[in-house]
């Protein structure tokens, strides 16, 4: 297939790139104890980028038999596009480190999902008879990608991923949690979630003022995703929209903070041998002991800034590549999570916020409702809080932090410890 497309487009343009992606999704949702939606599907597509002089054209199709039309459209678009003077060339060939591909999910089907959901139900029941599952979903996605371009890149890889969502209810209380992995999920952590849910049923009000706040790795990951990702994206740096654009080499955070992007992390949810343009995966230091060290590049900005791609290009067949982190790893502190929590005399422990898409990604300003938080009193994690908001600026508050020793999976490829910082808390 790819060969045919290449043969067709080759002589007609100065440079080309063909991206193929196939994905197979299986998804089962529960409503209460009953299966609700059961679906299975497959989609296959082709994205073609061509260059004429400095003019780029992109076209895609989900109808593979019409690949010629897709190539012709890409050429037509390139012809009438304006030249892109920043474009240098497509990604060049590189050496790929082998990343262990997990095959377990390939044979994971409806029967396995059924078993999982049954186990989930009985785990919840065993943990507490009154707690019910409001809704749950299990999704398994398998993918196959291949990229071929005029710089000689020809690489293919497979992806496997599954995720679960579950929401527990009891009376007017609800608690949701998610999990994702590259290997089949097991419901074993559910008992812990139920325990936390029961503790949090009692709700208290907090006062207002500057307070010490310990962020659970999931909450910290959410905050990083809503602004730090923007700040280390080479495009935003180039356009001077990032708060970091002129800060390389400077101290930007507490010296306890180190952050790296590592697509080669063993067993990492976002680990892969190359990115979506075929650039080899690598480890990129972003922040080291509080000092800003570098940014994330795709091939466009990597070439433009003569830095080379860091392997952080992401795309679908229908879109131009954009920049995004792979596995984002925050270095550990030297005190245990328990020690960090118990150091707080009066404060908040936050696991989930509401309204994350309202964070100002450019400035890092946020003002969010606490969807799931608990009081911290004299070093103890206590009742849940209600009607509470937290507000601040991500870049200001990361200038002084304490970090826990244990690193956890915070979702979306983040591997991070608990973090203690100070921010404004507004109680009802």
């Amino acid at each position, binding site marked *: 297939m790819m060969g045919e497309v290449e043969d067709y487009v080759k002589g007609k343009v100065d440079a080309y790139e063909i991206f193929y992606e196939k994905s197979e999704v299986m998804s089962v949702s529960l*409503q209460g104890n009953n299966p609700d939606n059961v679906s299975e*599907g497959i989609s296959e597509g082709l994205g073609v980028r061509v260059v004429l002089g400095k003019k780029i054209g992109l076209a895609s199709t989900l109808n593979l038999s019409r690949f010629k039309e897709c190539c012709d459209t890409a050429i037509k678009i390139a012809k009438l596009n304006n030249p892109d003077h920043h474009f240098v060339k497509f990604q060049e060939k590189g050496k790929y480190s082998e990343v262990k591909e997990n095959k377990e999910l390939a044979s994971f089907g409806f029967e396995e999902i059924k078993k999982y959901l049954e186990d989930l139900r009985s785990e919840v029941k065993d943990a507490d008879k009154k707690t019910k599952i*409001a809704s749950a979903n299990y999704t398994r996605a398998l993918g196959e990608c291949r990229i071929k371009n005029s710089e000689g890149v020809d690489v293919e890889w497979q992806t496997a991923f599954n995720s679960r969502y579950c929401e527990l209810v009891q009376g007017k209380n609800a608690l949701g949690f998610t999990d994702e992995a590259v290997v089949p999920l097991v419901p074993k952590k559910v008992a812990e979630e139920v325990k936390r849910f029961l503790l949090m049923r009692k709700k208290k009000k907090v006062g207002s003022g500057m307070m010490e706040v310990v962020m659970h790795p999931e909450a910290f990951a959410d905050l990083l995703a809503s602004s730090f990702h923007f700040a280390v994206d080479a495009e935003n740096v180039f356009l001077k929209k990032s708060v970091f654009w002129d800060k390389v080499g400077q101290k930007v955070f507490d010296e306890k903070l180190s952050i790296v992007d590592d697509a080669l992390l063993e067993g990492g949810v976002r680990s892969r041998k190359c990115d979506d343009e075929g650039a080899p995966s690598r480890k990129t230091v972003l922040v080291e002991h509080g000092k800003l060290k570098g940014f994330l590049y795709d091939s466009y900005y990597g070439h433009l800034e003569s830095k080379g791609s860091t392997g952080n290009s992401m795309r679908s067949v229908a879109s131009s590549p954009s920049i995004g982190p792979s596995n984002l790893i925050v270095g550990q502190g030297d005190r245990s999570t328990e020690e960090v929590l118990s150091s707080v005399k009066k404060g908040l422990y936050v696991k989930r916020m509401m309204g994350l*898409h309202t964070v100002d990604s450019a400035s890092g300003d946020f*003002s969010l*409702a606490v969807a799931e938080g608990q009081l911290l009193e004299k070093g103890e994690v206590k009742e849940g809080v209600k009607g509470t908001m937290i*507000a601040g600026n991500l870049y200001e508050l990361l200038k002084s932090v304490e970090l826990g020793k244990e690193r956890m999976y915070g979702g979306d490829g983040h591997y991070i410890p608990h973090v203690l910082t100070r921010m404004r808390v507004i109680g009802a």
Partner: protein
Amino acid sequence: MHAVLEYALEKGVGYAEVKSVAGERTTIEVLDREVKELSSNTSQLFSVRVLYKGGEGIAFSSKKEGKDLVEKALAAARSFRKGVKLPVLKAFQKKIKTKCEVHPKDISLEEKKKDVLRLDVRDNFKRVNSCRMLYTESVKNVLFENSEGTSVEWDDVVSGIMVQAFAKEGIKSENFYDVDRGHKGYEILEGAREKMQETMRMAEALLSAKHPIGGVFPVVADQRLGGVFAHEAVGHGCEADLVLQNNSLLKNKIGKKIGADGLTLIDDGTREGVYGWVPVDDEGVEGQKTVLIDCGVLKSFLHSRETAAKMNAVPTGNGRAESLAYPAIPRMRCTYINEGDASFEEMLSGVKEGYYLKGTTGGEVNPATGEFLFNAQYGFKVEKGDLAEMVKAVSLQGSILKILPQIVLFGKDLKFSHGTCGKNGQGVPVSDGAPHMLLEKAQVGGQG
């Protein structure tokens, strides 16, 4: 399509529906006077949904593999029995065509590119250092046919323009954006230049705005913020799947008074052309206007066919899906609060110390607890009935049943805006609207 349906019936299914969506999408993105993306995507997706001995299965594919899809949907239905029933509906045949003043196909891509490039009017705005425009158009043919005899064909066009401006002064930087979308044609670009000018003016104005001081205050909300309020605070809690999951605070509230006398809230699928127009939903149910709250009393929930069957209700035409790759679940369409008769001045005059909040960058709700949060784009402090300094990054939070009775005044200036609503990983087009409203007490968050 008909052959696929017949094949499914031969296999003994109780109900089957077959859908196909074929479309072409064009994207023009301009960043700082350079074309950042010019692309064309054609897509096609086919899906089959079957009910078989109480089990339900959906299969979809980008390949036209009719019989295979029936087999896959059947396999899914056999794996999970759930006792599903769907209400029997009267069959109908319908052909719908989205009205366009100018069909996007009649304008060349070259011309479109030039028109989008022309929207960058930053010369009059010295502190604007970057701006972005995103034009999208999608021309689709949607086919639906089910075993009850209903068949629908919709020739649809959806157009959209997003404008965003970044302003910078010293170390301060701010951005502002505006969006227009709808089931309409190229006429979407009319007035886009003015929209861009206003967006640039706002980005510059925000440079001198202050962070508000958080606390509990009276708040006047503009139409956009009021619309998000209608959607987040009430609409989600009325979605019948959440009610069935014991996941909505409004569960046992039908017939009960939950808001002020002046509060009437509607979810309407029949507003032709607006984003969130649903003449026929994704399960083949005809669009309608559903009154959710009438003079403060909760009247109805929003149903898919399945939730209607479970709750012994009539489907309301709210079964919607992001694409054929997703199941249809209860979703809002155009959700709005009806007008009252208060003037804006009347609302302000009652506020000794509070805020007038405008626009929105979005919101979220937990329907089970009723807690919500939404952000205004900006606003003004109100001191003794007068507008004072400008504020930014303001959020409102509260819980549904407490805040509804707090809305005491409704203006006579209903306006609509549009957005994408996310639920269970699916985004669907929606609109929302409200008049200006006065909330006696609301919790405002800010860093000041």
